[in-house]
Every structure is written in C-alpha cells, then in structure tokens.
C-alpha cells in the first residue's frame, strides 16, 4: 500500500516549523533546542541545556521507529563561578521501534519514555508550560524504560487505554538517566472522561543498581478547555534499602494555566516533595508567563519560591522545536 499512496499523495506545502522535515514516508527529521538563564541567591548562569535531533518514520503499515540524540548542557556559562563548559557529544535519549497489531495491541521496544502520568511524556522545555520541572517528575520514578511496553485501547472500553512495561536490564546510554536501575515492571491506565477531563494512574516497582527496591502508586488527572488547563499528579513510593530499612516518599503538584490568547499564558504551580530516605522535604510555588508567537517557539519567565530552602530564583528560557 505504501507504493500506492506514494503515487497519489501531495505533501502540505513546504517545511513547517514544529513538524519536522519529511524526507520520505520512512524518514522525518527534526529536533529541538532550549536555552536558559537562571538567577538566584547563589546562581547566575546561562545554559544551552538541550540540543537534540529527532529521526522517525514508518516502515510498512505496522512498524515505525524513533531515534532521539541529545546533548544535555551543551554549553554552560556560570557567571557566579566564572566558568564555562561544553558537552556536545550526544547521548541516545530514545531509540525504539513500535509494532502495531491493532489499536488494542501494540509493542514498543528499546529505550523510551516511561508511560507514567502526563508530565513525563512531554519532558522537553518547548512542550512544557514552565521552564522548570516539578520534583515529582525527576526524583520519584525512572524517566525511561529500556525494555518492552505493551499498549493499546482496552477492547471492552474504547476510552480506556493501558500500558504494561517491563525492563530487565541496565539502561541504554546511562548518561542522562535520573535513577539508575536494572529492573522495572509496571502498568498504567488512562481514561478519557469526556468534557475535557482525563484521569489515570500507574503502579510498579523498580530496582536501583545499589539494590534499593521501590514500589510506587501514582495518580494523574487533567482538565482542558480552549483557555484553561489544570493538571494534578501525585505519587507515593516505598523504598526497601539494603541497609536502612523501609522508607516512604511522596510528591505531588497542582498546576493551572490560563491562556488569555493562544500566544500568551500565565501559569501557577504548587508542589510538594518528601524524600523519606534522604530526610528532605520541599514545598515550592511557581508563577510564570509564557509567550509563544507560534506554538513550537516558546519564551518563558518564572519565579520560584522555595519554602524550605534558600533556592528562590528567577528562570527564563527560550526553546524551539523544529
């Protein structure tokens, strides 16, 4: 069928920013970058924090692939300590294939984003509403799976989707991994409730390289209209460490966005994070403004209040998906 469609299709005229460049049905090229300026009590730095290349395509009716190469902190100029560093060699951020038997049954294999909640699925600056990530998304569960995820819509309820994920090896390219693991099993469900509401949750367990074992239970919900978005996610985890016994950690955030035009939006977020093993508790409030002349180009400003640490800071960023 690929041959037939090639003969009669016409492409949308020219390259469109935020949609990549379609070389052929088998290859679309794109990428993104993000620059950031941070100013706080002990911080004054400019970063090119993300520089990435995307390649993806379809091979036949049922197979597709995606490769993402990324240089993290490609350039950092720290004005506080008068240092500059570069880190250009890219790492494999994602490399996976999808095989779809049907809408009810598909498999993704390779290194891919853990299908947990909403924030984790849109991890790059340009797609987020704020420059910063909540602690919830970075400290509580592994951001990536190097393994297999089975996914699809359930046959008995077409508004309910599932994902069952398994990892039983170390991570592919461990440079940008938030939690180093060699095992991770879990499942996620998401239900479209209608009228802009969605809700879901995940449960699973993972084993870190130091043999700490963690079980987690996570919930997420969001509400979207043309002008407003509200999103809330929460997670509680139990860690069984090799020497220090069992501890409980938890985190949640609630974020609201008001788009007074498609280009301009204000965002507020409140978040809580408690790490039972490290004995850390953090409460953070954020107010931000986002300007998108077109959706794939984002200029953001935010101010963060940290109730429990002296890390209040102003952050601004400019990012583009191309």
């Amino acid at each position: 069928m690929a041959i037939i469609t090639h003969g009669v299709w016409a492409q949308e005229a020219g390259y469109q920013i935020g949609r990549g460049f379609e070389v052929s049905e088998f290859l679309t090229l794109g990428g993104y970058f993000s620059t950031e300026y941070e100013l706080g009590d002990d911080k004054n730095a400019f970063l090119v924090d993300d520089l990435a290349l995307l390649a993806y395509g379809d091979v036949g009716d049922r197979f597709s692939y995606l490769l993402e190469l990324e240089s993290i902190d490609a350039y950092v100029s720290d004005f506080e300590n008068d240092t500059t560093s570069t880190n250009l060699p890219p790492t494999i951020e994602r490399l996976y294939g999808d095989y779809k038997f049907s809408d009810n049954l598909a498999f993704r294999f390779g290194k891919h984003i853990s299908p947990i909640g909403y924030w984790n699925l849109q991890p790059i600056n340009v797609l987020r509403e704020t420059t910063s990530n909540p602690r919830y998304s970075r400290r509580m569960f592994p951001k990536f799976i190097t393994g297999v995820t089975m996914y699809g819509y359930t046959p008995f309820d077409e508004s309910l989707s599932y994902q069952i994920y398994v990892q039983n090896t170390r991570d592919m390219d461990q440079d940008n991994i938030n939690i180093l693991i060699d095992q991770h099993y879990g499942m996620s469900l998401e239900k479209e409730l209608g009228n802009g509401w969605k809700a879901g949750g995940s449960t699973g367990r993972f084993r870190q390289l130091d043999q700490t074992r963690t079980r987690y239970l996570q919930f997420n919900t969001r509400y979207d209209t043309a002008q407003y978005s509200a999103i809330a996610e929460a997670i509680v985890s139990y860690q069984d460490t090799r020497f220090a016994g069992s501890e409980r950690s938890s985190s949640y955030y609630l974020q609201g966005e008001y788009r007074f035009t498609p280009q301009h939006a204000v965002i507020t977020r409140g978040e809580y994070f408690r790490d039972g093993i490290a004995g850390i508790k953090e409460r953070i409030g954020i107010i931000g403004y986002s300007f998108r002349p077109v959706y794939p180009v984002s200029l953001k400003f935010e101010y963060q209040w940290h109730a429990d640490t002296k890390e209040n800071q102003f952050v601004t960023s400019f990012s583009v998906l191309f």
Partner: protein
Amino acid sequence: MLRIHSLIMLLLMTTAMTAAPAADFAVVVASGSSIQNMAPERIRDVFLKRRNFEGDIKLVPVNPLGEDQLRRQFEQAVLQMNRDDVNRYWTTSHFQGVKPPITQASLESVKRFVARVDGAIGYIPRSMVDSSMRVLYEF
C-alpha cells in the same frame, strides 16, 4: 391575543425543529471498503492518528490543504478543535514521532485518493458523493 401569540411561537418552534438544514459534508470511504460505519468519536481519533486500524485494515486519513475552508469546518465540527489547537496537537505529536494525515491539493484529489487507496478515509462536500463512495458520517 395572547393565545394567537402563543400559537405563532409554537408554530415557529416546530418549524425550526423540523426544518434542520441537511448536512453539507460527508466523511467517506470507497464503496468497496469493508468499513460499514464509524462513530464520530472514532473518526476524530482516526484523523488525530490515535487510532490506526479498523479490523485488519490500516486506515489512511486524508485532508485537503490547510487553507481549504472545508478542512476548517471539519476541524471545528469533528475534531472539535480550532486551528491553534490543531497546531499544538501536531507539534506535540512530532516529538512523539507521529505525523499528521497526508494532504491532497484539492477536494477532487481527496475523492480520487479515497476511491483508489485501501483504508483511505476523507471528507468531501455532500454534492460530490457518488456511487464510488460510502458515507460514514455527515456534518
């Protein structure tokens, strides 16, 4: 006098309810397709590439070019999105490795594409529908 007014109002309401305008556009597949019908929510998911199959058939949604007025009407009526929402959706999908539906330069080419390609699904004005098409939904 009041009774006459009430009668006129009732007559006007009844007329408005019974004389709803006929649908102008139709979502179509080839008449030989094994796809017999499709709910509007499913059509929405197919054109957003959230669903890709109908039984064993790989679906190939096809749009007219972006400036076509019919495409905007389809986005409003079926996708329930305005153009900003649509752009936002496909930008996010680009990061997920999902491309928008393919496009055709004219409604005539949409019709020809749907008639020729197995699994193709498109939308055209009701007046263009002929025996080579099967209508799945009208809007």
